[in-house]
C-alpha cells in the first residue's frame, strides 16, 4: 500500500501570520556606558586598564564596555571576600544573614522589568522568557535560600554545618542572572563570601545585581563581581585563597578546572554540558508531547545545558509526530527578542552562531535529513531558524556532541530496552524526558536513565526547591533544594 501523505496545515498567511510590533519599552532602564569591577562594595577600575565591549546580539550594537579583570584584580577581590568572611559574615547571626538575602530577593522583584529588559538586550533571549522565567526564578532562588540561612541545623541534623570560606563562582551566558542567583544565594545562606565571574558576553545583569547588592547594604566584600573572559576565570580558579569553586559551563572547561585544582583542598562542583534524550512512547499524550519537544529544544534558542536535544520517537508514531512537529514549528516566531510575541530570540554571540552553523554542515555531511521552519529571520543580528535533523544515527556527531543551539537530532526506536541503551550511550548525563500515559513505565525509566533530572510528561521545568545536576561528564554536585546547601558547608 502506498504511504499516505499527511495533509499539511497552512500557517503562511492570513490573520496572525504576522503581528503588529509589540516591543517591550526600554526607556526605563539604566545602563552605564562603562562598568568597573565590583570589589569590596565599591566600583573599582581594573588594574589591567582594559575594557571590552558587550554587544546586543540582536542588533550587533555595543551596549556598554566592561572592565577586564586580571590576576591583580582577582587578588583584590579574593582578599576583600576573605576579610569580609573573617571579620563580618562568618560572625553574623544566621538570621541577620537571611535578612540581607531576603532583601536581595525583594529588590530583584521590584526591579524585575529592568532586569528582564537588560537580560534580553545583553543575551538575546526573548523578553517573554526573561520576564516570565529568568527573573522570577532568580528572585525565587534568593527567597528560598534566605529561608534556609538560620535553619541549617535542620537541613543537616547533628552534623554541625559550617561555612567553607570564600567561594569562587564562574557562570555561563545562557541564563546570566539566574545562574548568578543559583550560585550566590546558597553560598550566602550558608555563610560563605563570594567572588563571582559572569560570562564575558553577558556581564550586565550580574553588574546590575551588584548594584542591588550594594543598595541592600550587604557588608562590603561579601559579594564581589569580577568581569572578564577565560583568563579571569583561570585566575580565580588558581587563586590559593579560594576554598571552593563552583562552575557552570562547558565540559571542556570543566575538565581544565578539575585538573588545575587537583591536589588542592578546594571543593568543587561542576554543572557542565548535556545532550538529553527526550523519549516519546506511542502511548504518550502526543499533542502535548509535541509541545514538550518544542519546549525542550527551542527554549532559550536551545542554549540550555539540559535541552532535550536528542529526540527518540517510537517507530509506530514517528511519522505522525514529525509531521505535527513541523507544523508546530511553523508557528514559532523568530526575531527581535524585545518583541513580546517573539518565541525564539537571538543566538548569544557570533561565535556561538558559527559553532551552530558548523554543526548544521556536519549534520548535512553525515547524511541526516535536514529541515528548518520557513520563518523569516532579521538580516542583522545573530539568528538561527529552528532546525531538525531527521533519521539521525547514534554515531552521528550531531547526536553525540552538544550543539547548544536550536538544533534537534531525531531518532526512532522500537523497544524500551533499545531506547534506554541509546539514551545512556553518551558521555553526558544531565537530564532526560519521558512521555507516556503509563505511570509504571515512567518509574521504570527514571531508575534506568543515567541522568540527574528526568522530566515526565513535561520538560525544562525549574524550581528552587528541586535539586539540579548531572552524572558522568555533565558534572557533579547539586544546585537547588536542600542538596544545594551541601556544596557550601563542611561538617
Amino acid at each position, binding site marked *: 500500500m502506498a504511504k499516505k501523505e*499527511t495533509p499539511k496545515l497552512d500557517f503562511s498567511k492570513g*490573520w496572525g501570520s504576522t503581528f503588529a510590533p509589540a516591543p517591550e519599552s526600554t526607556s526605563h532602564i539604566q545602563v552605564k556606558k562603562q562598568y568597573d569591577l565590583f570589589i569590596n562594595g565599591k566600583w573599582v577600575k581594573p588594574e589591567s586598564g582594559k575594557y571590552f565591549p558587550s554587544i546586543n546580539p540582536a542588533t550587533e550594537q555595543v551596549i556598554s564596555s566592561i572592565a577586564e579583570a586580571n590576576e591583580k584584580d582577582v587578588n583584590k577581590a579574593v582578599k576583600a571576600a576573605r576579610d569580609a568572611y573573617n571579620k563580618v559574615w562568618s560572625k553574623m547571626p544566621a538570621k541577620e544573614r537571611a535578612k540581607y538575602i531576603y532583601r536581595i530577593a525583594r529588590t530583584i522583584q521590584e526591579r524585575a522589568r529592568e532586569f528582564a529588559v537588560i537580560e534580553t538586550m545583553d543575551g538575546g533571549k526573548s523578553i517573554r522568557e526573561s520576564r516570565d522565567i529568568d527573573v522570577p526564578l532568580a528572585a525565587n532562588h534568593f527567597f528560598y535560600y534566605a529561608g534556609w540561612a538560620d535553619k541549617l541545623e535542620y537541613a543537616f541534623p547533628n552534623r554541625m554545618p559550617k561555612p567553607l570560606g570564600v567561594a569562587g563562582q564562574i557562570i555561563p551566558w545562557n541564563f546570566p542572572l539566574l545562574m548568578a542567583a543559583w550560585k550566590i544565594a546558597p553560598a550566602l545562606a550558608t555563610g560563605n563570601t563570594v567572588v563571582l565571574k559572569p560570562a564575558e558576553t553577558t556581564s550586565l545583569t550580574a553588574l546590575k545585581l551588584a548594584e542591588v547588592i550594594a543598595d541592600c547594604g550587604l557588608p562590603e566584600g561579601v559579594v564581589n563581581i569580577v568581569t572578564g573572559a577565560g583568563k579571569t576565570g583561570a585566575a580565580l580558579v588558581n587563586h590559593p585563597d579560594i576554598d571552593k569553586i563552583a562552575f557552570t559551563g562547558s565540559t571542556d572547561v570543566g575538565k581544565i578546572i578539575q585538573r588545575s585544582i587537583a591536589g588542592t583542598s578546594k571543593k568543587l562542583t561542576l554543572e557542565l554540558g548535556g545532550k538529553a534524550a527526550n523519549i516519546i512512547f506511542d502511548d504518550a499524550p502526543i499533542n502535548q508531547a509535541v509541545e514538550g519537544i518544542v519546549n525542550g529544544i527551542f527554549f532559550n534558542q536551545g542554549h540550555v545545558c539540559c535541552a532535550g536535544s536528542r529526540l527518540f520517537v517510537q517507530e509506530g508514531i514517528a511519522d505522525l509526530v514529525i509531521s505535527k512537529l513541523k507544523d508546530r514549528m511553523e508557528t514559532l516566531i523568530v526575531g527581535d527578542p524585545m518583541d513580546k*510575541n517573539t518565541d525564539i530570540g537571538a543566538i548569544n554571540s557570533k561565535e556561538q552562531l558559527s559553532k551552530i552553523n558548523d554543526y548544521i554542515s556536519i549534520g548535512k555531511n553525515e547524511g541526516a535529513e535536514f529541515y528548518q521552519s520557513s520563518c523569516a529571520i532579521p538580516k542583522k543580528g545573530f539568528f538561527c531558524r529552528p532546525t531538525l535533523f531527521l533519521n539521525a544515527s547514534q554515531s552521528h556527531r550531531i547526536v553525540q556532541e552538544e550543539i547548544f543551539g536550536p538544533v534537534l537530532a531525531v531518532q526512532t526506536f522500537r523497544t524500551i530496552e533499545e531506547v534506554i541503551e541509546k539514551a545512556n550511550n553518551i558521555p553526558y548525563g544531565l537530564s532526560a524526558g519521558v512521555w507516556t*500515559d503509563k505511570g509504571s513505565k515512567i518509574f521504570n525509566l527514571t531508575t534506568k536513565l543515567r541522568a540527574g533530572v528526568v522530566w515526565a510528561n513535561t520538560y525544562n521545568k525549574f524550581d528552587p526547591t528541586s535539586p539540579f545536576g548531572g552524572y558522568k561528564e555533565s558534572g557533579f554536585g547539586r544546585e537547588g533544594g536542600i542538596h544545594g546547601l551541601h556544596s557550601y558547608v563542611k561538617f
Partner: protein
Amino acid sequence: MTYPDFNKTVTVDQVGIEERCSRFQARSIKKETKVEGLKLALNMIDLTTLEGKDTEGKVRQMCYKAVHLHDVYPGLPTVAAVCVYPTFVKTAKEALKTSGVKVASVATAFPSGQSTRAIKIADTKFAVENGADEVDMVISRGEFLKGNYNFVFDEIAAIKEACGKARLKVIFETGEISTLDNVRKASEIAIYAGADFIKTSTGKISPAATMPVTLVMLEAIRDYYYQTGIMVGMKPAGGISTAKSALHYLIMLRETLGNAWLSNEWFRFGASSLANDVLMQLMKEKTGLYQSADYFSKD
C-alpha cells in the same frame, strides 16, 4: 472509512494543555492585528438567545442587531448566525432574509437532551423544515458517561441524517462530561458520526467554554484532518464575553489549525454579550477613548 475504537482514544495531558493555553494568552495583539482580529471575531459570532421567555419580538430585535452591529462604525461585518429555539426559526428567517446571516436552531430536547430519539429527530426536522441553516444538537451525556459510546454515535448519525442540507453542530456540554479525556473522546465520536461542527456547551451549565476544553477539541479536529484531509468546524459557546479572550481564542485557533480555519465557515463563538465588548474595543481603537456601555445597543 475505518472507525476508531472509541474506548481507546488519544490521551490528553491536562497540565500540558493548560500550559499551552497560557502561551496563547501571552501573545500581545496590538494595533492593526487587533482591529483585524476583532472584526474577524465579530464575523464569527453566533448571536444567541435561548431563554424560556423568548418571544418573536425579542428574536426580531436580535436579528436586526445581527446585521446592523454598530452603524456608526462603517464597514463592520455582520455576525455569522443567530441561534434560537426551533419555534423561532421562522421568525428569524424572515427577519434576516437576504442578509447572509444564517439561522441556527438548537434541537434534540435542548439543553438536557433527555428525550427519546424519535422526539429528537422530529425536533430537528421541525427546525430544518422551518428554514434552519444549522442545527445545534446536544449529545446524551448520561449514555456517554455510562460508556455507551455506540448509542451516542448512532444518535448523532441519526440527527445528521435528519438535518439534510443543514450543517450539524454537536454540543458535548463539557461542564457535564468533565474530564479532558472525555472531551477528546466525545470529539472523536461526534466527528466520525458526521458532525460538521463540534461545540463545547449549551451555555446553561457552568463551566461553559474554556480554553483548555476548546484546545482539546481543536486538536481532535486537527488529528482528524491529518487522517482524512476533511475539515470540521469548532464552536466554543458560553463564557466568552470579552474581546480580549476572543482574541486569545483566535490565536489558539490559528496556531493549532492554521489559516484555513480562520473564517466563520469553520469557527464560531456562541455568545450573547461578546459582540458589544468587541464593538467597544473597536471604537476605542478608532477614537482612542473608551465609550460608555450605553452607546452600544443591547438587543
